[in-house]
């Protein structure tokens, strides 16, 4: 396993015309690691991936892949020599090629014979359970099938780093399994890594080893999924990673972040129901409390009338940094 980070960007700045899409981002992805880039649309996720892939030239900053500087010093290395694969937002399947020829394309570019490239492509399509679609063109494939072909093409590239540019649909369990398995086996030999851009918190938290939060071209926080979920650096980071309420700390020490499930009904504190929504396995109650508005999730349960007085307990809270103390 290589000691160098698979991807390392330093002080990356990208301007689109007069607007800054990235304002100084520094980030490392270790070999074998899956890093999720989480941010709202327009936060710079795609721009960051495009800079890493070589689809655009950063205004300033350095991009290094496996210790090799590919952008920032001297002539930039073109995309085809960066040893990357990209799964595109809308999969970017070539309308004139069949699924098989699409997946064989990277091997053909490596110089393999048509027969060999196709044999490998067939095997990859098989691993993703779409071998029967080998002769179809993109127009004849569903969204999910296109995703599998797009991922198969990326796998066929056998790169050091996979980039996922906000795939429109979630990776389903099987596809995700094949991909992570591939990553693990490649990790043993060469240290493949992946960067997965998404605006979906649940997907990012469930897939990644580490999560990087992006907002308006800046990194807000980088950490394990548990860290960014339970200990967000500010209210923006908190809202990005899942539903939460911000209330005054009972001891008056500042603002407190309370996730769903960190408070329960019944107990010493008072409140009044503002709204109540039945969601199947659980019910969410929005409660007016002296400390502020709080969303409490009750397992099972039923809707409560607006205005009903209830009591509740605070199980856990996270003091947002910038304020005194920690919960």
């Amino acid at each position, binding site marked *: 396993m290589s000691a160098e980070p698979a991807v390392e960007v330093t002080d990356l700045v990208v301007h689109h015309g007069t607007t800054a899409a990235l304002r100084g981002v520094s980030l490392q992805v270790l070999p074998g690691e899956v890093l999720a880039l989480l941010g709202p649309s327009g*936060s710079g996720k795609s721009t960051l991936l495009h800079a890493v*892939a070589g689809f655009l030239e950063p205004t300033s900053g350095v991009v290094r892949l496996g210790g090799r500087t590919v952008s920032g010093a001297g002539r930039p290395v073109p995309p*085809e020599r960066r040893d990357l694969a990209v799964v*595109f937002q809308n999969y*970017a399947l070539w*309308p004139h090629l069949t699924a098989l020829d699409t997946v064989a*394309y990277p091997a053909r570019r490596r110089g393999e014979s048509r027969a060999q490239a196709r044999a490998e492509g067939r095997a990859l399509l098989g691993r993703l359970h779409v071998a029967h679609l080998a002769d179809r063109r993109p127009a004849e494939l569903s969204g999910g099938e296109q995703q599998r072909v797009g991922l198969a093409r990326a796998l066929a590239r056998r790169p050091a780093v996979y980039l996922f540019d906000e795939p429109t649909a979630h990776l389903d369990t099987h596809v995700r399994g094949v991909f992570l398995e591939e990553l693990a086996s490649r990790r043993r030999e060469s240290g493949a890594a992946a960067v997965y851009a998404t605006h979906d918190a649940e997907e990012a938290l469930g897939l990644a080893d580490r999560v990087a939060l992006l907002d308006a071209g800046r990194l807000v926080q980088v950490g394990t999924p548990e860290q960014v979920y339970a200990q967000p650096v500010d209210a923006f980071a908190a809202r990005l990673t899942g539903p939460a309420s911000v209330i005054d700390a009972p001891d008056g020490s500042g603002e407190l972040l309370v996730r769903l499930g960190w408070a329960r009904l019944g107990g010493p504190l008072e409140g009044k129901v503002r709204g109540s929504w039945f969601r199947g396995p659980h019910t969410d109650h929005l409660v007016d409390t002296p400390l502020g508005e709080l969303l409490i999730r009750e397992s099972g349960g039923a809707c409560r009338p607006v205005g009903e007085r209830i009591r509740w307990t605070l199980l856990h809270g996270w003091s947002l940094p910038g304020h005194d103390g920690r919960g």
Partner: protein
Amino acid sequence: MSRVGRPAGARTGTAVAAVVLLAVLVGYPLLRLALVAADEWPGVRPAGLGEALRNTVVLAGAVTLAAVPVGVALALVLRRPDLPGRALWQAAVLLPLLVPDFVLGYSWTQAYARAGFTDTLLGVHWAGLLGPAGVWLVLVVNAAPLAYLVVAVALAARAEPDLERAARISGAGAATTAVTVTVRLALPAVAAAGVLVFVLTLGSFAIPQVLGAPAGFRTVTTQIYADLSLGGDPTSFVRAVTLAVVLVLVTAACTAPADVLLAPRLRSQRPADARPAAALPARPAVLRGQTLALGGYAGLTAGLPLAALLLASITRAVGVPPTPGNWALDHFRTVLTPRTAEALGRSLALALVAATLLVLLGGLVAVAERRRAGRTAATLTTLTLVLPGSTLAVGLLLAYGRWLSGTLTLILLAYLAKLWAVAHRPIAGALDRFPPDELRAARVSGAGALTAVRTVALPPLAPALLGAWLLCFLTALHEVTMSSLLYGPGSETLAVVVLNSQELGRIGPTAALSVVLTVLVALPAGLLWWASRRWSAPAREVPAGVG
């Protein structure tokens, strides 16, 4: 299915009116042509028929084989948004489209032929310019911008940036990506450009006339012209009619299968937008090389010839070096006679009336085809697009010559027949993009049918109508293929005066007239192009793939 709008009767009425007008303008003349040809067919077999036909077909094939690759190369280079001076290069490459065919051909003789610009200055000239090779090359230069436009539009619509990025990231270099993905995606458009260039070359007249006729190289169109305007004997008349029929048959034989094969493949998968593809970064050396090649191409094909033409128009005499000391406006004074002024007035009036009527005719078919009854009219109109001007002119002469021979009315009818489809396409396109719900919303808000059209439909359609009008106006202004066959004493258009002047060998005056004609056509067209770019500029600046 009933639409908010006019009653069905009025709709059917427009369709019927369109079909009747088409029959008068195109159907009957072609029928007369066929009847006369059939009448004469078994009798005389005039000489020179096969040669003209062979020349035309070989020429059209050779022009297509060269112009399409040039157009593809131009489209690939010019789509890079980071190309230095991109807008300027686009204008330079499209320049031959703004210059009347005749003027382009004539300007080449002023630049590269004996006693031309390069001959006077460097003592080098190209003897082959007057002859098949020269006709071929100038037709290639003339057609390449058209091929470029067709391919560029297809690339903008089909070659999404991600498809090329996917190829690059899969290990393909820039050249491999262009071949395996970019051009491959535009292949139907490339083929369509080929058919278009082939058909237009079959019917092209001015350039073969200026460069080929002096060397005895005859094509179908120039042979028809020679037979009708010079030869007065019955054999040449029969030959002209026969050639007119053969020309339309060859054209139809080429376009019909191409239309069947290509039409389904040309339907865009997503609407074309004006945004240039966010290109991958290119090496500065490559960009410099491309800029240099573009500069050389635009300079040699259009820049130098047009400059030589301008110099010839202001240089006192043929043979003297075109230096400021020898400059004078004598030629302009010579040509600006009352006769020229009258011809100019006629050309302007004809173009004005033709363009206005054509927008009405185009609109008529565009509205009619919204119903099933009108689709036939639309299909027939589109078919006239490939009718060679020479054929139309001979047909009209046979059909209405008895009453209208040599009148401006006959020339006007020819313009209407030839350009109807040209006016119809942009209007129908704009109407297709116009959401019908907007008209319905106006009606339920209380507007009557006419008020709804005036307040809701016309404003968004205005640019298309204006564009169609200008396109017809400018084309009519320099039309020479049909005018030169149909004019008579007192109905010469400016383009005919220029052609006659060239045939008389008056170099300085012809150059001066060419400059006048070019300014007349290119100036409004250039202004229009500039204005359209300015209007659409904000949309262009949004970079693709942000977020």
